[in-house]
């Protein structure tokens, strides 16, 4: 086989290799992302339940403390201290509720990443499809034409993928967001 004609064979091999290896790795990525999603879902379910149970217990405790304070036998400074602790607890609860929203944000990011990964697999499959069309002993001009065609297809698919992706999450911290009334 002449050097020229070897090119077609090599290009086919390259496109098939990039496609196969890329798809294989992306499938692993998606598997890991699915597992991450499952673990996060379980974590937030448990954290949420634990938090609500803890809050219920704290409220019950505060009720009892109020009853004791109501007897009038608790020194004023202790009453003041209890009120301060109550205020601190309310503050901590607010912070916990804000932080517990992490799963919503991370889930959105994971979902977007999985969408992109699936889209990327489709792009790589396009390489494989075009690679199959290239004849092993094809002429340079034919190969050039097909590679140009695949470049255009990839650009189009990439644009379509971007339009389908859910919006990204820009939050980099779990500080509460802005509020605006119109």
């Amino acid at each position, binding site marked *: 086989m002449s050097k020229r004609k070897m090119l077609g064979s090599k290009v086919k091999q390259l496109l098939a290799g990039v496609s196969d290896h890329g798809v294989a790795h992306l499938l692993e990525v998606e598997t890991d992302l699915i597992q991450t999603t499952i673990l996060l879902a379980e974590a937030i379910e448990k954290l949420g339940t634990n938090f609500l149970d803890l809050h219920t217990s704290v409220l019950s405790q505060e009720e009892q403390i109020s009853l004791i304070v109501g007897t009038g036998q608790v020194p004023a400074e202790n009453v003041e201290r209890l009120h301060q602790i109550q205020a601190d607890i309310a503050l901590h609860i*607010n912070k916990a509720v*804000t932080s*517990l929203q992490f*799963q919503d944000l991370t889930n959105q990011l994971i979902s977007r990443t999985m969408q992109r990964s699936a889209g990327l697999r489709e792009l790589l499959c396009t390489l494989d499809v075009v690679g199959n069309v290239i004849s092993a002993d094809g002429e340079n001009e034919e190969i050039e034409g097909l590679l140009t065609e695949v470049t255009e297809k990839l650009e189009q698919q990439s644009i379509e993928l971007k339009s389908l992706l859910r919006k990204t999450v820009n939050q980099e911290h779990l500080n509460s967001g802005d509020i605006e*009334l119109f």
Partner: protein
Amino acid sequence: MAKTILAVDDSGSLRQMVAFSLKAAGYQVIEAVDGQDGLEKAKNQVVDLVLTDQNMPRMDGLTLIKSLRALPTYQRVPILMLTTESSDDMKAKGRAAGANGWLVKPFDPQKLTEVVKKVIG
């Protein structure tokens, strides 16, 4: 009688935190899992305020707002967005669709309660 808020979000954990915060402040909360579910529940019972996410399956927040505003019973009901999005462009779209306010996630329960009190008392 306690005022009722419809909380629409496809995230179960987020709905749980919204419900916890608002119930603690004395409000009743109805939860919906997406815009379509929210619209159906809103039609079944007129609520005092709608709090909705934007990015949801089946029907997104902006579409829900437009659908609600098309209903005679929801011409004046306050609707607030609670979303990760914060761009001026999206806020403008929300306002044009009929939203009365925009809250960026994650929310602080005290601030959420304050803004709800300000809007519906």
